[in-house]
């Protein structure tokens, strides 16, 4: 007789099993009404009439437009989009980096001990986290709509809108990346009396550089896509071109623009991979 068989029945079973089953059931119970609320009925997609509508929509995208004058416009718009995304992310970095340094617990001197100024430190971190939340809670399109009214139609409104929303997103995620990496090196430096910036540069960045870069480039990629939506409200770039093509029901132009997006996303991937290799 084996030892397992000799145990009472309950001891041979995984004690976690009941909890996992419970969690799975709970997820189903929560998800079902949410799907109902979102009117999620995938079967509708496959009804004959709807398939024809979608087919017609997609067919109008063929063939991609390639008239020289359109390609010229496309090139200008692409450069404009890249400029909006890059300038927006660069400005966002200026917002995010200082706020993340203030907000991260990994660089708190007053938490050691805890020492003098711990309530002030905690209050400051809370306030900065609140600010980051406000910055990213308002969608960039809303900022864009506002800035277009102030600055007029054009890329400048897009850049500002991206800088604010993405500053909030980058700041929040930087804060958390700095806390989820190994924080002991930075804490040791702080314990030896070094300043926050030095502890960041010598203790945290070497461990977190890859993740920080990867997330920043991914956000740049998102900014390229976001600039399309903002283009719809007149903030320039590929979005504005796409808006015009769609309104004129010119599917060929739209599909060429989509191809450019695909290329830009591939470019972002390549940049991210190259930077991560360089930082490995």
């Amino acid at each position, binding site marked *: 007789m084996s030892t397992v068989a000799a145990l009472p029945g309950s001891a041979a079973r995984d004690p976690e099993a009941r909890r996992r089953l419970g969690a799975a059931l709970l997820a189903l119970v929560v998800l079902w009404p949410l799907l109902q609320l979102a009117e999620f009925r995938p079967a509708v997609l496959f009804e004959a009439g709807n398939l024809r509508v979608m087919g017609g929509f997609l067919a109008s995208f063929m063939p991609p437009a390639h008239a020289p004058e359109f390609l010229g416009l496309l090139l200008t718009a692409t450069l404009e989009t890249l400029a909006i995304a890059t300038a927006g992310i660069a400005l966002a970095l200026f917002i995010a980096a200082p706020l993340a340094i203030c907000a991260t617990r990994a660089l708190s001197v007053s938490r050691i001990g805890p020492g003098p100024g711990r309530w002030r430190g905690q209050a400051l971190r809370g306030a900065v986290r609140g600010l980051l939340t406000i910055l990213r809670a308002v969608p960039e399109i809303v900022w864009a709509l506002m800035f277009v009214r102030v600055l007029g139609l054009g890329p400048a409104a897009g850049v500002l809108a991206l800088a604010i929303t993405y500053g909030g997103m980058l700041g929040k995620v930087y804060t958390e990346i700095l806390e989820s990496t190994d924080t*002991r*090196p930075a804490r040791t430096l702080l314990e030896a009396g070094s300043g926050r*910036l030095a502890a960041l540069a010598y203790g945290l960045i*070497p461990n977190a550089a890859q993740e920080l870069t990867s997330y920043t480039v991914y956000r740049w990629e998102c900014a390229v896509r976001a600039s399309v939506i903002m283009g719809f409200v007149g903030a320039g770039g590929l979005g504005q071109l796409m808006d015009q093509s769609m309104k004129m029901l010119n599917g060929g132009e739209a599909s060429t623009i989509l191809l450019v997006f695909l290329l830009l996303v591939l470019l972002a991937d390549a940049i991210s991979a190259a930077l991560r290799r360089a930082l490995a």
Partner: protein
Amino acid sequence: MSPSLVTRNLGLAHGNGLRAVHGLDLQLAPGERVAVIGPSGAGKTSLLRLLGTALRPTVGRLDVLGANPWQLAAGDLRRLRTRIGTIHQAPPIPPRLRVVTAVLAGRLGRWPAAKGLLSLLYPVDIAGARAALARLDLADRLFERCDRLSGGQLQRVGIARVLYQQPELILADEPVSALDPMLADAAIAQIVAEAGQRGATVVASLHAVDLALKWFPRVIGLRGGELAFDLPAAQVDAAMLRDLYASEGNVVPTQANDPTLLQAPAELGVGAPVVRLDSCRGRG
């Protein structure tokens, strides 16, 4: 001269009520060298973290280098911390850092922020880092990345960082646990020499009792967070040690793990041969 460390009824209790350190009364003169020994879980690391102002005592009081750290303003506490150098058992050095950068980081507390950041672009004191590493026979690894080093080499980089820091109080938590006996001996010799040169105080927790008795004139035995004994090394006898390590089956840990060493621990003191570092090249 005022003492460099004073503790009165010093205690540390964790959130779960577990007492890591309890009722410690200690006084250390400047330049004194003290070893802390005791079974694992005796509170050695907690004590060192208390002395290093990394943890705040839950009871009692503590004076470090003439000041009560927990009554200082933030700026003064920071300046006090730059005068304390801690050698950690597992050196908290990011693996991607180069050895030279890891050593220079020892003086970040004294450098202005701009100098520290500049040093990441081009190391500002290559000669200083090389000299500190040379004392631990690692000068040839100056520009290597720390993830290329073995555990023992990394531990020596951690020691080099504190030598470069030139603190007035050196706290060493199992500083040579990853080194073989000869290297361990030589590394402790360097810490002791550095402290002797500048009159720095040393408190080191050591697993190997023979090392403690050989290099430290005063030995503190810690058990269950409380003081078991606090004596000159020459007065520590085998019975006391067996008693201290009763929870580990009366086996007193040593470098070679040779129990015969313990028959006459006092004999291990002065006169024991000092191993030269260059005879250990290629180890650890």
